[in-house]
């Protein structure tokens, strides 16, 4: 696999949210606005990048039997760091993302990439994989967040373009499932079309 391929496969082909369907809990919970989606995506990208890099550095030092606890400790450390940093330097973001930053620890994308990629590949490749997957996660969150904010609040990045409320259900939990479902369906449809084209 070429370096470019490792980086870009997370964007769409193996998008963690829309294709691998990992990390759906934060996806459904924080995508009420584009701002939250971007903040969560970038925080997760940072954690993915750092944990992938460190885990692939340490992959030969960590005995197999304790690899999962070691990975979790490393991931939890980076998540706590970014939680403290956001609270200290971006308090507004901290109050809107709230509990979901600490919950990056249990985001299965992070542990999934550590186990499936970083523990078997070189440091450089793991960093690329982390960045790619992080950007893929951010793209998916931003798409869902945009749809929900535009339909639900009638605004984009907090700039309102209608009077009053939007279609409120899109800001609430059922709207999250609806938009998520339709986005996954659309991506699957596009992929199957591309596959059919390649076969003919």
């Amino acid at each position, binding site marked *: 696999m070429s370096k470019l391929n490792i980086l870009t496969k997370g964007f769409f082909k193996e998008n963690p949210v829309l294709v691998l369907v990992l990390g759906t809990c934060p996806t459904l919970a924080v995508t009420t606005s584009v701002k939250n989606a971007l903040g969560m995506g970038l925080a997760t990208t940072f954690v993915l990048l750092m944990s992938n890099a460190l885990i692939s550095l340490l992959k*030969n030092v*960590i005995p197999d039997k304790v690899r999962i606890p070691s990975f979790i400790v490393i991931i939890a450390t980076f998540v706590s760091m970014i939680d403290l940093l956001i609270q200290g330097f971006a308090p507004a973001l901290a109050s809107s993302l709230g509990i979901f930053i600490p919950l990056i620890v249990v985001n299965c994308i992070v542990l999934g990439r550590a186990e499936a990629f970083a523990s078997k590949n070189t440091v450089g490749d793991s960093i690329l994989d982390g960045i790619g997957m992080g950007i893929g996660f951010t793209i998916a969150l931003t798409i869902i967040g945009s749809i929900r904010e535009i339909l639900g609040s009638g605004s984009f990045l907090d700039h309102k373009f209608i009077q009053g409320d939007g279609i409120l259900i899109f800001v609430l939990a059922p709207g999250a499932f609806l938009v998520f479902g339709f986005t996954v369906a659309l991506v699957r449809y596009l992929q199957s079309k591309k596959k059919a084209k390649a076969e003919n």
Partner: protein
Amino acid sequence: MAKKESTLTQLVITLTLIALLAGVALAGVYSLTKDPIEAAQLQKKKDAINKVLPGFQGELKDYTCTVDGDKDPVTVSLAYQDDQLCGAAIETYTNKAFSGRFDIMVGLDAEGKVLGTAILKHSETPGLGAKIEDEGSHFIQQFKGMNPAETPLKVKKDGGEVDAITAATISSRAFCDAVNRAVAAYNKVKEENHE
């Protein structure tokens, strides 16, 4: 480099080292962010106090007090201007909200009249209960000048004075509950301090 074997000593050494390094790294970040986090929280509180006690320049004295029948305490900051009690900013809460608890800051003058309110934290339904956030709305404005010490605040549905938010009676009731709690706490602190 060959992969480390999974002997007991290896396992113990690796995990101890990783946990130790993680601890050191976290301690570093914690000491780096401790002051900004405290400053941010203080700033948030200051902004809220400025909103509920407009134009106040004097000194604040903090007390915590638990209103009879409650589990959690509220923070009452008595406001002194030239050593004269001129009101209070009270960090109060309610557990009767539609989704869990919400925290508001209430400003009172010396007699216990409401000067202003500010939402600190809530998780009410967007578009319905979340309208308590809208500071220009009739619902928030109507509290100004009310004195809950004489008659506890109630929404009109319950026979009170307060116009509830359309389709958000529970949130409106909860808001009244929080303001009433603030006034009760204020009177209690005032009594205890013989002001």
